[in-house]
């Protein structure tokens, strides 16, 4: 077989799920030492295609060739054995294992049937250092934050030393610092001849990394462009088939203080004490490095974790009881970071998930008309790609799941809307819609508080930014002084003039 045969080649891949044709006759080629970015709207079929390549799904039709050789993958283990590693879009870790065990799961260093624990700890530390995760390899995975888990997953894929490395939105909950390190690692792998598929909705990353950009639309190829020519506009038109108009960001005038936080301390940073206020009509962002305690803070506000101390007032009334139900009743709601565990009831339908937080307001009995309405409205407004309101949320694509998370909270009509990584995995088109919607709500007097690891998002959405460092508010930046530099300086503990 010729050695110049592509590393990986698929032709005419089709895959249907009940109610959806996820992929129809897709072709895709990957060469050695090449980074191919795969872009497409939410639900275009990117993850499905990658799962086919990694042996998770069996295609209905089509052919897969590895180095020119036709192969049929019998499962994830088979794909791994052939050198294809996939970093899943959703976290998939066994959280009862230690970090070292998780890194080596499925490929343990062994001596006969026995584990070589020491060697694995050593190896894990080294490989995790590459991606910038400095944790004790004997620590349990359960104690890591989502961002750290994502780094762990990347580290694990590196350890596999695969010929083909597929990364499905690897940076969706990473901050710029970790993302930058990942890019360096990627460059190194490319030099070593590994073929890399990179999926992301952060188009800036895509143009930074990709040798080639391949578009997918409605489960079909929508063309490709060389990496050099991958401008924002061209990529968007590859994804959606038209260009999006850049809307002008409206400015609002803040009103009364609706959220007042006094002396709140969290379990992760018991010595740090947080005070701030949010006014109605204000959109406030919280920035910080990975593990700086952003999610912890939001969860404490919402009462999901018990705050160690402090007082929270919503609309001038202190929260008396503790817990999400009380917070929601007072008008403060949280769209959590981990959509699989906290954001959605994966086994229920889109419709039921959308109405879950608000249904009780319509009486003791279920108001079906309200549910139908809400569902139709949310699907239309947020562009949720679904076979219908009855589809099980767990079978939606990642980005579409995130839209459902947002949809149910937007419908809640709260006083304070708290969002943790609101657009994780959401495509550019929908993102613009969501921003517009948030501004519209803010204009109508809603207070929005959000955490985002994506600086671009913080910059474009926030009226004011609080920067966290080790659980403390390191500084506050009004819109006029917002820039990547100022945020990063505060986040890393430097003073800004």
């Amino acid at each position, binding site marked *: 077989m010729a050695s110049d045969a592509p590393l990986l080649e698929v032709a005419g891949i089709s895959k249907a799920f009940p109610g959806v044709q996820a992929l129809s006759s897709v072709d895709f080629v990957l060469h050695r030492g090449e980074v191919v970015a795969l872009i497409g709207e939410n639900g275009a079929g990117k993850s499905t295609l990658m799962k086919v390549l990694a042996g998770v799904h069996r295609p209905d039709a089509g052919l897969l060739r590895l180095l020119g050789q036709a192969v049929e993958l019998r499962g994830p283990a088979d794909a791994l054995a052939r050198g294809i590693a996939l970093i899943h879009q959703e976290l998939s870790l066994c959280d009862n294992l230690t970090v070292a065990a998780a890194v080596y799961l499925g490929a343990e260093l062994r001596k006969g049937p026995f584990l070589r624990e020491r060697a694995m700890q050593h190896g894990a530390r080294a490989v995790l250092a590459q991606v910038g995760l400095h944790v004790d390899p004997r620590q349990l995975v359960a104690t890591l934050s989502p961002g750290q888990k994502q780094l762990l997953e990347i580290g694990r894929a590196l350890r596999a030393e695969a010929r083909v490395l597929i990364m499905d939105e690897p940076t969706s909950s990473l901050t710029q610092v970790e993302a930058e390190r990942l890019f360096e690692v990627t460059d190194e792998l490319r030099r070593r001849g590994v073929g890399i598929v990179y999926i992301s909705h952060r188009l800036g990353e895509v143009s930074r990394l990709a040798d080639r950009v391949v578009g997918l639309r409605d489960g079909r190829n929508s063309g490709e462009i060389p990496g050099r020519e991958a401008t924002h506009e061209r990529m968007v038109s590859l994804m959606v088939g038209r260009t999006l108009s850049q809307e002008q960001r409206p400015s609002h005038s803040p009103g009364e203080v609706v959220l007042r936080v006094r002396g709140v301390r969290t379990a992760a940073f018991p010595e740090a004490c947080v005070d701030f206020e949010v006014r109605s009509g204000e959109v406030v962002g919280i920035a910080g490095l990975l593990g700086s305690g952003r999610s912890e803070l939001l969860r404490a506000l919402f009462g999901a974790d018990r705050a160690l101390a402090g007082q929270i007032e919503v609309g001038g009334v202190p929260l008396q009881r503790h817990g*999400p*139900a009380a917070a*929601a009743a007072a008008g403060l709601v*949280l769209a*959590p970071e981990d959509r699989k565990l*906290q954001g959605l009831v*994966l086994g*229920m339908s889109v419709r039921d998930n959308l109405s879950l*937080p608000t249904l009780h307001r319509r009486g003791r009995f*279920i108001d079906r008309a309200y549910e139908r309405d809400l569902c139709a409205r949310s699907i239309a407004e947020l562009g949720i790609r679904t076979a219908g309101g009855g589809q099980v949320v767990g079978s939606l694509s990642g980005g579409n799941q995130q839209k459902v998370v947002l949809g149910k909270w937007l419908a809640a009509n709260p006083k304070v809307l708290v969002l943790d990584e609101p657009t994780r995995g959401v495509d550019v088109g929908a993102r613009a819609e969501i921003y517009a919607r948030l501004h519209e709500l803010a204009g109508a007097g809603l207070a929005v508080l959000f955490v985002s690891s994506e600086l671009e998002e913080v910059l474009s959405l926030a009226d004011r930014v609080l920067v966290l460092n080790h659980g403390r508010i390191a500084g506050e930046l009004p819109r006029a002084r917002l820039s990547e530099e100022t945020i990063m300086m505060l986040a890393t503990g430097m003073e800004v003039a």
Partner: protein
Amino acid sequence: MKKILGIAALLVVIALTTTWLSWDASSQSYTFLSGYNLQNLLQRIGMFGVLSIAAAFVIVTGGIDLSIGSVVCVAGCMLPWLLRDHGVPPLIAMPLVLLLCAAIGLWHGLLIVGLGLQPFVVTLCGLLLYRGVMRAFTGDQTMGLGGTADELRWLATGRIPITESFGLPAPLLVLALVAVVTSIFWTRTVAGRHLFALGRNEEAARFAGVATGRLTVLAYVLCSLLAGLGGCLFVLDVNSAQASSFGNFYELYAIAGAVLGGVALRGGEGMVLGVVLGACLMQLLQNTINLVADSNQLEFAVVGAVILAGAAVDEGVRRFFRRRR
């Protein structure tokens, strides 16, 4: 609906087979179809159906209640104790017993929600504990009603005449009432929706502002309450309860009925109609064996095999539909 197709089909097949096998040449009739037999069968379905709905209430929250049989025992011993030994009027005694059972459920719920113990552990201890306490309480004596509650016994043994030889057994009406109310609760109320949501993903439900703790406790209370109701019906039916054996193993029958009827043990899934069908199947099988077999030695084996077959058929039906969709 698809979930209960398998079990419904199985039920029909077994009923037809039983009918066919129950031909009695001497009376030229199918004994299975005699009014007397149908009455008895429906009565048992009524009583065991209540227990299966009880079990289903906690299974949909993703929990389990292994203490159902022992709560049946508590109700079965306490009701005669109040009626016979203390002359409490029936209309006070039964609510008292139900209250006691509800309190047991409350205690389960608080241990599970408040202390964070596992439902399996809490109710396994309950299984041992309540029966043990009842043994000591009754001094191992059989508790009989001693003719003190003949009107109340109507609840268990009464028949509402339909034809000359057939009357609807009162427990079936009790079951119908419980089933309809439960069904409305599950499918039409917000609390029911919340119950199912928390059964699938407790944390997500909590983040959506659902008072998951309170609802979970409610589910355990209702479960024990219904188990207690079942226990009252049983003792009213047989007129005597022996603490060491009364209601023994009934939790397994109850759970089997619920699971056969499509209630998923991982929580958040189930229909009342399915549960009732599941309970029907369990009782029908025992009736079948008594009517046609030479001895009932194989009874357990047959019940076990049929539940297994039911589960397999069910899974098959589900896969079939998944593929066809």
